[in-house]
């Protein structure tokens, strides 16, 4: 299994396509950082427009933590496409190249082959998120410096103390990793139904788009299924930036306002991963290789 995983990782990282994702992330984050570096003040004024008359803010709103939050909000919509590019190609790409049949004539169990491929997809996803963290968080901290994190919610403002921010990002990235692994699992599952990569990649994105629309539309019929859609729970990483307050309405350092919400969302995502991967293994064990 370990040797098979090494082989799968070797194949993934030998393909130029893999590095396209890292290049795309670098370019996207670079563009956001450049834009905020050049015109950050205008952006901050725009963001603060509604609050300008209510209170004034000392310190740097446009600090590395704030930039990273903006980047995460923007990127976590696009990253699924980059993940689907690899995960949805894992089986369909091999079928398309014709290598699947050679692979399956080797003395390896089909379950081991599927699991090695899925774990390789997971490692790729995690590396992509680590790269986002390096570029989006650490590089932003380096360029823009650090300060308290100032976030505008729909009906309130959250100010997270500088000393209380970093662990929240660690939690948010871990949760984002779970959400993106769910996307990888979906792409991986769909890759069993096609003999070219394009179909599963488009299908993965289509499922995500449709489910996201269902998750965001406030219609009673959709509200019934919302709790079961993985897209509803993919944005729960934001909960790491809401904290409890004491009677004096002061932030309790190290607290999360709704930890049960995070646990519930993580559970739903984990169940989706198990279902997608379990179905993939079950299908693959029965699959006749005709390509």
């Amino acid at each position, binding site marked *: 299994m370990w*040797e*098979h995983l090494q*082989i799968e990782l*070797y*194949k993934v990282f*030998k*393909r*130029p396509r893999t590095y396209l994702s890292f290049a795309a992330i670098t370019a996207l984050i670079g563009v956001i950082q450049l834009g905020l570096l050049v015109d950050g003040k205008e952006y901050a004024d725009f963001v603060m427009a509604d609050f300008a008359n209510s209170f004034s803010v000392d310190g740097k709103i446009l600090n590395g933590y704030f930039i990273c939050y903006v980047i995460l909000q923007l990127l976590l919509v696009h990253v699924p496409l980059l993940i689907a590019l690899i995960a949805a190609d894992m089986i369909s790409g091999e079928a398309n*190249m*014709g*290598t699947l*049949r*050679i*692979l*399956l*004539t*080797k*003395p*390896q*169990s089909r379950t081991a082959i599927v699991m090695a491929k899925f774990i390789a997809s997971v490692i790729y996803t995690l590396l992509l998120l680590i790269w986002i963290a390096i570029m989006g968080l650490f590089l932003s901290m380096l360029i823009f410096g650090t300060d308290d994190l100032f976030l505008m919610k729909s009906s309130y403002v959250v100010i997270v103390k500088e000393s209380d921010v970093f662990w929240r990002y660690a939690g948010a990235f871990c949760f984002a990793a779970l959400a993106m692994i769910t996307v990888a699992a979906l792409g991986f599952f769909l890759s069993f139904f096609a003999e070219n990569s394009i179909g599963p990649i488009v299908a993965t994105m289509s499922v995500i788009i449709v489910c996201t629309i269902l998750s965001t539309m406030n219609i009673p019929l959709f509200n019934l299924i919302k709790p079961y859609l993985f897209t509803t729970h993919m944005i729960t990483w934001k909960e790491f930036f809401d904290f409890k307050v004491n009677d004096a309405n002061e932030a309790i350092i190290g607290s999360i306002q709704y930890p049960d919400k995070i646990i519930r969302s993580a559970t739903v995502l984990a169940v989706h991963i198990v279902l997608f991967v379990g179905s993939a293994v079950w299908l693959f064990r*029965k699959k*006749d*290789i*005709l390509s």
Partner: protein
Amino acid sequence: MLLYKPMQQIVKVSQLTKQFNSLTAVNQLSFSVESGDVYGFLGQNGAGKSTTIRMLLTLITPTSGEISIFGYDLNKHRKEILQQIGAVIEKPDVYKYLSAYENLKLFAKLSGVKPTNKMLMDQLEMVGLASRAHDTVKTFSQGMKQRLGIGIALVHNPQLIILDEPTNGLDPQGIADIRNLILILSREMKKTVIVSSHLLNEIEQIATRILIIDKGRKLVEGTSAELFNDQQTILQISVANNDIAIQTIQASNWASNLLPERDGHIMVGLNKEDIPNFNRMLAASGVDIYSLQARHSLEDYFLQVTAGKQHVGTFTN
């Protein structure tokens, strides 16, 4: 665990059937392959050859029937059996973004061996790719890819080699190279080879035993000697006027031996010792004969059998 032990019967297939919905691709097929055989697997397109080979390699699950290889049930000992099989299935598809060396190394590991540089280079040398070892496969010709596919099939020194249409897309030199390689594998390296091909003359030159299937069913199975009865030939006759010659034959004692014309030639099935008398009869009847050619090629036999002109089962076990 290496399961292989010297034995007479390497592959035994019993009542093998595969259905795809309403289509029966392989129907109650039984055959066996003996140690050291070069087993020619013949059939028209859609006859069920590839489906059968894929079932031998566990790529397709049989609907019913049994396959035992090296004396063990394939279903129960899949991993151990596959360790002793090398296969090329139709096109030699490998990872095009990797080099020949990297492909070979990767598949060697998947086959359960720990490849050394010497082992890999020796293998590439054997298939004539040592000088291109580190070039990516996307720069290779079809013939080179085919040779690499065979190298991959042999890298773990298997006892049974299964080649499904190994000469597809190759030029005459490439076909000859594959033929010679199969003969080396069989005669010098004592491997058992199952080879399917639509190039009947290639099979004829290398196969020690032949199976012909049609519509998923076995038509005949036997050694070349059994299939090609030296005494039974098909005479291909070229004459000045076919109509006169056919009327002459129909009026003779050999009327029942007349076969349908092929490519403008008159075809007559005859015993070898009857050919001189037949020739004299035609000449005495005033037929201008340009040539008489006795044929008993596999192609003739294959066309006879698949057209239903041969009693099915004559040579079946």
